[in-house]
């Protein structure tokens, strides 16, 4: 298969970005999207200092920088806006799980980084998601140290609660929810942690402080508020439900009422 790619190029955080157009040919339909990007990069490295490419108006002739790691949909490293959708046209997958058979031969594909003020571009398609770490550092845990804890089966947890907690905990921290939200809100991300822990007896003890600390940090870092458009849930590769945002709101309200 052959494709035309319009790829966002940006030297670093301070430089203004632009689109470059490239062609890739002979791509197998079984090739994954990121493998196709590898092939593009291979091509760009080989042409690297080729004056012809530069004369053709190619401003950034080096390989395209993009984040990726596990390539099996769990580490949350890969990102990308593909044809205007986070993680591409399919639901419930990450970019690394997208395969070229999903496109038509000859398609033009637009590839952009996440767009969010709280997650600025570092280079080309790589953004800085450090804000997510900061939110979790503010309180996304149970304050237990290593050792001295009770036997695992001394804490009974109804199966439905454990299952729902696991549903919430499936979040991979990729940032698609923020990137797709018109408000740039991180509510789905935060709710996954808040809800997962709030559903468990071990997590209840600090539930009020946790939710307040995390929401405060989110506000401080410049994420927007939630206006219930549910775009985040649509684009979440793990399909974390907005019902967890509802639980987050409930937890937050109760915590504030007690203040």
């Amino acid at each position, binding site marked *: 298969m052959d494709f035309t790619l319009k790829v966002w190029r940006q030297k670093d955080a301070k430089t203004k970005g632009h689109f470059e157009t490239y062609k890739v040919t002979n791509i197998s339909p079984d090739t994954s999207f990121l*493998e196709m990007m590898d092939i593009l990069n291979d091509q760009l490295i080989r042409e690297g200092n080729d004056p012809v490419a530069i004369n053709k108006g190619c401003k950034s002739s*080096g390989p395209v920088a993009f984040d990726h790691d*596990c390539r099996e949909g769990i580490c949350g490293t890969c990102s990308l806006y593909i044809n205007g959708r986070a993680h591409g046209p399919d639901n419930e997958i990450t970019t690394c799980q997208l395969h070229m058979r999903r496109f038509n031969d000859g398609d033009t594909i637009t590839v952009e980084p996440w767009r969010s003020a709280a997650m600025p571009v570092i280079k080309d398609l790589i953004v800085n998601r450090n804000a997510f770490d900061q939110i979790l*550092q503010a309180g996304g845990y149970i304050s237990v140290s290593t*050792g001295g804890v009770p036997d695992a089966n001394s804490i009974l947890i109804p199966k439905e609660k454990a299952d729902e907690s696991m549903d919430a905990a499936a979040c991979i921290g990729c940032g698609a929810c923020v990137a797709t939200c018109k408000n740039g809100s991180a509510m789905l991300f935060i709710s996954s942690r808040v809800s997962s822990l709030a559903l*468990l007896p071990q997590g209840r003890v600090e539930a009020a402080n946790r939710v307040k600390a995390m929401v405060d940090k989110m506000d401080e870092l410049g994420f927007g508020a939630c206006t219930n458009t549910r775009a985040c849930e649509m684009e979440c590769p793990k399909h974390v439900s907005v019902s967890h945002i509802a639980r987050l709101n409930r937890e937050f309200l109760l915590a504030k009422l007690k203040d």
Partner: protein
Amino acid sequence: MSEKLISKVPEGPLSQKWTEHKAHIKVVSPANKRKLEIIVIGTGLGGASAAASLGELGYNVKVFCISDSPRRAHSIAAQGGINAAKNYPNDNDSVYRLFYDTIKGGDYRSREANVYRLAEVSNLIIDQCVAQGVPFAREYSGMLDNRSFGGAQVSRTFYARGQTGQQLLLGAYAALNRQIHLGNVKSYTRHEMLDLVLINGEAKGIIARNLVTGEIERHGAHAVVLASGGYGNVFFLSTNAMNSNGSAAWQCYKKGAYFANPCFAQIHPTCIPVHGEQQSKLTLMSESLRNDGRIWVPKKLEDVKRLRNKEIAPSQIPEEDRDYYLERRYPAYGNLVPRDVASRAAKERCDAGYGVNETGLAVFLDFKSAIDRLGEHVIAERYGNLFQMYEKIMDVNPYKEPMMIYPAIHYTMGGLWVDYNLQTTIPGLYAIGEANFSDHGGNRLGASALMQGLADGYFILPYTIGDYLASRIQVPKTDINDPAFVEAENNVKKRVDKLLSINGTQTVDFYHKQLGHIMWEYVGMARNESGLKKAIEKIRALREQFWHDVKVPGTGSELNQELEKALKLADFMEIGELMALDALDRKESCGGHFREEMQTEDGETLRDDNNFMYVSAWEYKGDGIEPHLHKEFLNYEFVKPSTRNYKD
């Protein structure tokens, strides 16, 4: 035995060794811990749990990871579960049985005392993770659920759907985040360790590259903990993450840490088969699937032909024409034989011409009987995300047609040599998790990697490192202007500049693929003397070509992913050679290491305990000079090594 290879295994009965050892090693007072600095490399289960626990104890910790967040470490991708000897299902499990299964599964090439300790602390891990809020699977009673894994006849595996590694890592990462918030741990993301710094023979710090700015930084400490994972990506195609690498461990080797059992690499039987040359990595299908999936190939070659030509669907082949070869060959364990056994059995069938896809390198993993017995909803609940993952990659619905699988490189049992305290041959340098060699011998059992990472990080290293640091409480902060730091930094800069200046004709990936082909062909599932010798020659030639012809674009003072890859590959080129050298030395078949010259009549591994019951520990002697082999002889005091038998 070399004077440096002192295992420090304590005397006494097996079950008392760790207790006695803990009682006698030194501890550091809280006031003194505040004066001591520790560097932790890596944030997988080992690194994150160690950094968090050391921070809780009051040490000043700096933790480094190559990803944009500690949560991305490849432990996140572990699917099936974590073992512990809780005996919750009342199926007669015990610490001893977990220990015994692990020693046997490792084909008697690991240290008894280390493995017993691992089994001993396994139960604490489950308690700890539950306290952290890890949402393990539960029964309707509210109690924890268990399932079975390969190499065991009991159900001792705790799990969180098919995302156990993710949930355990999020637990350790949360503990780490708490320590970062409290200021006890400082986190350096997008940083890569490129050298270890020794002062007077002791590990005193590292040289790291800031992957965003390209700046080369010096970081000092009183001790360094390596938790940088394994080197499986030497094969190019593996189930490891793209950025997983052996460089941090390799740089330690080059600074004097012995590298143990490099040839012990695990080939996982259930991975999605290779589709072609454009492929960048292989995806694992969890071993837990072998609880309910049955592995088979057709009995008749004409059915194989029709499958390959896509004239029939696998589900159309009648029961009587299917060869459930694991159940046939190993009736006692059936589909749940250990990974090395299952991988070789798949290769045997495919070599005999029964491979079921176009390349002839695939077998079926079939869920039909389980779906008939339990219903589709039960299977979906147990493995839903794995089935979804499979369908996305292969475009086949595994509820309807069997999965196609084939073995692939997954894990490396070899790693830096460590003593009972997890200290390497360099004082002050510790290695934990997959980065060390200690617990899995020639083959790791499923659901034991998570167990080992967390055992080392939560419950072993935080104790043993105190024994070393207790005598260093008067030692001032490491001076990063020491000539040793300047020299190490200059060497790193030279290496970076050299790679950037070659400006050859081929990309890093081109060379990595070549290396992968050599490794898979000669140092893969079946090895022999002439092949290994050929591999060494070919790797040397390839390395020569790489250093003259690789093309690394861009500069060192920017985010440069090609440079990162080139640095890693330069080390893989050397690791690959050491693996082949080690495999050549070990003229026996053992666990994942199968020497074709050494097999029984029915193709099983033939161990040679008289000549090879040792850990090979390689000492670096300089570039282009053959490394020196030291041997740590294994002394089986409590278990009598026998031929592994999974048949009856």
